[in-house]
């Protein structure tokens, strides 16, 4: 399955133009890619114009801030849910589906930054909930943190296919989620339900044995104990897709799971897909290169900022 991507999630935002414009590596603007012509696809105020207004400098980048942990729940041996108290603007900015932040144990250096999806936002209280699976080198460093976290954000490219989510109204949508990838699904489900969409969910609890969907949404849970890797689950999923009259599919799970399920989706070419972004995100600014994937022509795509479209 080929991928392509030329839409920067930050384009036109308060963080655009960024370092990439200064380095002539902008994702959108050909003039800021060392090409002396206009050949972009951006519909909005011209990035080059904005850069010119800024005297050929980037806008201020996202900074770190220390936030208080209001609540810390161990919902499973390996899964923690933190409720953070953030400034109001940040809470508002994080309410969009696909939002993520970096979190870090403040006693450690920058390379311990962990990209974490936003699960729920309470704009009135300015509370932001995240679910963290304690899994590897970085996540282990916050296992025992219970007072404050260092965070950096907002970032928005946690989901691919955001335009489908934005457009969805009065639709029937199917969510397929596994493990802690339920967290970004929660934010997306609540967004869709506010726009009068019907959301059915199939949950594979994964290794974490958690059900965040039931806890944080009012979505219709069809199944909550499937193992999505089994042929049986795939058969049932196939039935669901054939008879369910769904207009959009969300898959929250690893790239391995997503690839695996494309065998099922193969027959559903025209259904818009929304997928979690599982790439190795490290700086979030398109600079470090950790998140780079390549399109069919071998062109690098910086997936921390670029919306990726899967072409079947």
């Amino acid at each position: 399955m080929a991928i392509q991507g030329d839409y920067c999630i930050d384009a036109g935002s308060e963080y655009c133009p960024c370092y990439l414009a200064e380095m002539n590596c902008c994702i959108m603007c050909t003039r800021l890619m060392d090409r002396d012509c206009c050949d972009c696809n951006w519909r909005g105020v011209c990035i080059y114009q904005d850069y010119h207004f800024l005297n050929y400098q980037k806008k201020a980048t996202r900074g770190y801030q220390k936030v208080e942990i209001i609540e810390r729940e161990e919902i499973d041996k390996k899964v923690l849910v933190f409720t953070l108290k953030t400034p109001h603007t940040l809470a508002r900015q994080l309410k969009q589906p696909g939002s993520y932040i970096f979190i870090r144990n403040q006693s450690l250096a920058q390379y311990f930054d962990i990209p974490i999806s936003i699960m729920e936002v309470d704009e009135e209280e300015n509370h932001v909930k995240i679910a963290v699976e304690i899994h590897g080198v970085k996540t282990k460093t916050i296992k025992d943190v219970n007072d404050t976290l260092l965070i950096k954000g907002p970032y928005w490219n946690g989901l691919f296919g955001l335009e489908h989510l934005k457009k969805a109204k009065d639709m029937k949508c199917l969510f397929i989620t596994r493990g802690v990838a339920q967290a970004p699904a929660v934010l997306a489900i609540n967004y869709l339900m506010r726009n009068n969409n019907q959301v059915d969910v199939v949950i594979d609890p994964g290794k974490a044995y958690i059900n965040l969907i039931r806890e944080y949404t009012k979505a219709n849970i069809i199944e909550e104990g499937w193992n999505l890797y089994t042929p049986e689950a795939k058969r049932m999923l196939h039935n669901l897709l054939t008879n369910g009259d769904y207009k959009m599919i969300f898959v929250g799970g690893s790239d391995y799971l997503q690839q695996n399920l494309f065998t099922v989706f193969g027959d559903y070419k025209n259904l818009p897909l929304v997928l979690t972004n599982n790439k190795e995100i490290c700086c979030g600014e398109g600079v470090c290169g950790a998140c780079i994937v390549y399109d069919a022509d071998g062109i690098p795509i910086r997936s921390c900022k670029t919306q990726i479209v899967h072409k079947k």
Partner: protein
Amino acid sequence: MAKIVIIGGGWAGCAAAITAKKAGGDVHLYERTDMLLGLGNVGGIMRNNGRYTAAEECGLLGAGELIQITDGCSRHKDLEFPGHKHASLYDVTIIEPRVRKLLKDMGIKVYLQHRVTDIEKEGGKITTIKVHPDQVIEGDVFIEATGSTGPMGNCLKYGNGCAMCVLRCPSFGPRVSITQKAGVEDILGKRASGSYGAFSGSCKLNKESLSEEIVKELNEKGLYIIPIPKEEISHEKLDMKVCQQYALDAYAENLILLDTGHAKLMAPFYPLDKLRKFPGLENAKYEDPYAGGIGNSIRYLSTAPRNNAMKVDQLENLLCAGEKAGFFVGHTEAIVTGSLAGHNSIRLYMGMPLLELPRSLASGDLIACAKNAMQEEEGLKKRFTFAGSDYFKRMVELGLYTTDTEVLKNKIERLKLLKIYDDKLI
């Protein structure tokens, strides 16, 4: 049936659609904004100087439909203003729906808010176009009439930034050069100074924002002239603008307003605070571009190499028209080139020899002169319009200029081209 796909719904694209349809094509017109006519929604000047001849030629060749509409929408006819005779000014506020209706009634399929972003080709032949975001459209012959103005980065690079003109790039997305996508390099026009592009030559004031006296005069006579105080006169501005036919001292020394529904101010831009110092303009407000106080759109940034039958070089099934086809200025020029491209699209499909308009007609001569200019460094600084400047001089010298329709009719009859665009070829 020949599927003719036209990209760009300005005057040139509309004219091409009409002649392609009349010649028997299944015509599909793609336009990125929500209106046809593009800059025709803010222009309005017809039939001045040699454009009269060209408009008559167009009708006699069989492509009179759009000229009939512009004549029918004229607020003023036979108007004289500095350097120009027998002009008509059509009302820009009423014309677009009429053209849209004409195309619809003719059975031309018009797709508004469909922005073409790319092409696919096999060898030298375009097979499909891509419409944003992911539609793929097949066609037999394609006509590019996307113009040469903008998008915003160009208006900044070569002008004063986006002035928010009627093309509305931020809302509908940027213009895409189809020829460039097909691997044919764009040719860019230059100014006398050597820099690329040129400013659109006029801006429009909201008529209601002007004094009663000016509005009355404009409505009755179509013209209002205010002398500019000596210390404010800038002849430099004349070099900036695309419309060399209005690059006369009279336009630097006077504010010239024409009534096209809006009050058309014959200057590329004019600072609002200075404008408001003129008597009667104390409350003046721009209608197009909205930021006419600081700048205007930049044009001539994307012209294609072509032959005199409007076929683009290196590509087997792509024709071009309007500003895409040369450094042309004006609606009449767009209609003339568009009509030829539309007719030739069917000839190309049928494998027939393509029609070239003879140089004994102003239309054919203009097309040929503009082609030659694109091939020379100095030519990149020239503009081509029947309405004035060097080309109108040439028309007069060669005896191509006439307002006598009978003379033209006899000539075109002799050339065996009378109503040739009316011929159904398929």
